[in-house]
């Protein structure tokens, strides 16, 4: 995932050209030529103006070519079934060299199977898969619940605070530390390394490639030290012990080890964080659904899937066509960039009934595209669902209402769909 976050970097876009030239903010999607619509610029995502753009394209040009953009020419795939076709055809649409909309320009690339094709992808993924399998997660559930409770019990009641900072970030950071059994007092390093791994030098996190390289080296050294400690210890239930002690994983080369560790960290960081925030906002915007939840908490597992659909914490995944092919009546050429907008497929009325409504007890809630489908389907999906389920069970134990009391602020990115700020006030039962 190292490269995927690049579009969120304002610096990259600003240095490439005047951002206002590419921004769609404030424009009416129905009052502009179809071919001018460009979803890649982060502006409409941060301004929360993307939905009508997606809607027009879904209805009028569901496989859409954008010839000119800050990130070059690319195809957008808007409809559920077309997205499904691309996602399940790795022989036509490659995940290499990158799954981000911006072409990779870093020389420092860790081996990560999210940006690999079969057979290498399958081999590497199979090695890591058991660590996030439900059987192992069950063991961690009690500890995760304890930490969730501690965070919720420490929140101020009746006064305004930022849910993103105090809950979403704190919780995902603590959960990462729990899952890796990482030294708890150093847990913020995990978030830092996750940010660094996806950062473009100059965009705020690190200043140069050297600085990034140094941070990654520190990460590798820390994890190598922990690995060496755990490899000879009694069998542990944390992800790191499982990797260090596992038959198939104990001899992994260092760079592959680091790549896999980072994929686990990055993959579960922003995504879960923003689904935690997004759920609070969605329930506030749909009070009848909040009432449903209060009346029947058994709806929580289903609601979790609906929150993940509604938020779609990663708006897209990018593929690259390997051969000339056809999609939705359009001719795709080998080498073309093809972007699957999961966020749009999740609103496709042809497949999802009342797709533009947030319905916590909807039928077939798990059919959403947020995890992708096919061989690259999100490996940690059950872990993400478990975290959100525990969180909402414990929120409902304590609070009648988590009230949104101010304007949410959103991430400047067309990839990471999330929040930087969500002011709330807690109302206990």
């Amino acid at each position, binding site marked *: 995932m190292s490269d995927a976050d690049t579009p969120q970097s304002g610096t990259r876009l600003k240095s490439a050209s005047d951002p206002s030239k590419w921004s769609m903010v404030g424009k009416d999607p129905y009052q502009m030529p179809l071919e001018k619509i460009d979803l890649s610029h982060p502006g409409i995502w941060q301004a929360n103006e993307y939905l009508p753009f997606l809607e027009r394209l879904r209805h009028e040009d569901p496989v859409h070519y954008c010839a000119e953009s800050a990130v070059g020419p690319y195809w957008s795939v808007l409809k559920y079934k077309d997205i499904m076709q691309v996602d399940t055809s790795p022989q036509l649409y490659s995940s290499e060299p990158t799954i981000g909309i911006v072409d990779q320009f870093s020389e420092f690339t860790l081996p990560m199977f999210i940006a690999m094709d079969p057979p290498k992808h399958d081999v590497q993924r199979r090695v890591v898969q058991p660590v996030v399998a439900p059987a192992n997660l069950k063991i961690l559930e009690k500890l995760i619940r304890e930490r969730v409770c501690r965070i919720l019990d420490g929140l101020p009641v009746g006064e305004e605070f930022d849910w993103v900072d105090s809950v979403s970030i704190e919780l995902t950071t603590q959960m990462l530390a729990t899952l890796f059994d990482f030294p708890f007092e150093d847990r913020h390093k995990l978030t830092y390394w996750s940010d660094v791994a996806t950062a473009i030098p100059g965009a705020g996190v690190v200043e140069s490639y050297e600085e990034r390289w140094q941070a990654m080296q520190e990460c590798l050294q820390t994890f190598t030290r922990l690995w060496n400690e755990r490899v000879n210890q009694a069998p542990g239930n944390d992800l790191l012990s499982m990797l260090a002690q596992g038959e198939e994983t104990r001899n992994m080369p260092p760079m592959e080890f680091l790549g896999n560790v980072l994929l686990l960290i990055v993959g579960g960081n922003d995504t879960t964080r923003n689904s935690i925030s997004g759920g609070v906002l969605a329930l506030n915007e749909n009070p009848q659904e909040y009432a449903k939840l209060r009346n029947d908490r058994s709806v929580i597992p289903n609601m979790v899937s609906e929150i993940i659909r509604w938020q779609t914490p990663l708006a897209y995944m990018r593929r690259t066509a390997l051969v000339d092919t056809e999609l939705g009546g359009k001719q795709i050429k080998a080498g073309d960039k093809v972007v699957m907008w999961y966020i749009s497929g999740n609103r496709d009325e042809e497949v999802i009934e009342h797709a533009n409504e947030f319905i916590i007890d909807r039928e077939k809630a798990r059919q959403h595209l947020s995890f992708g489908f*096919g061989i690259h389907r999100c490996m940690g999906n059950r872990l993400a669902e478990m975290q959100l389920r525990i969180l909402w069970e414990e929120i409902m134990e304590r609070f009648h209402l988590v009230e949104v009391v101010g304007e949410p602020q959103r991430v400047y990115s067309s990839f990471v769909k999330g929040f930087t700020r969500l002011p709330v006030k807690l109302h206990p039962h």
Partner: protein
Amino acid sequence: MVKIVFREHDGTEHVVDAKEGASVMLAAVTNGVPGIDADCGGACSCATCHVYVKEEWLARLDEITPMEEAMLSLSSDRKDNSRLSCQIEVNESLDGLEVQTPEFQY
């Protein structure tokens, strides 16, 4: 109608009448058999309709396609008798088919 027996991880048995031409996955879902999620709706692309087929029935099933193989191979719970139930089409020769659902679908 064709009889299919689903056995849960804990041994609970569900016997359903399945429609010929439909998939075993669909027979489970339409009859409310637990343990089959089928997130992708039968597109062979999520592996959450994973079942273990009782040995004596394996030979009567169509061969595993490369796509089914790709999805199955990513599961840590894969066994020799693993199949995705959305890829098993119900027909007369499968009357009495027995499959077991795994403890978790993922």
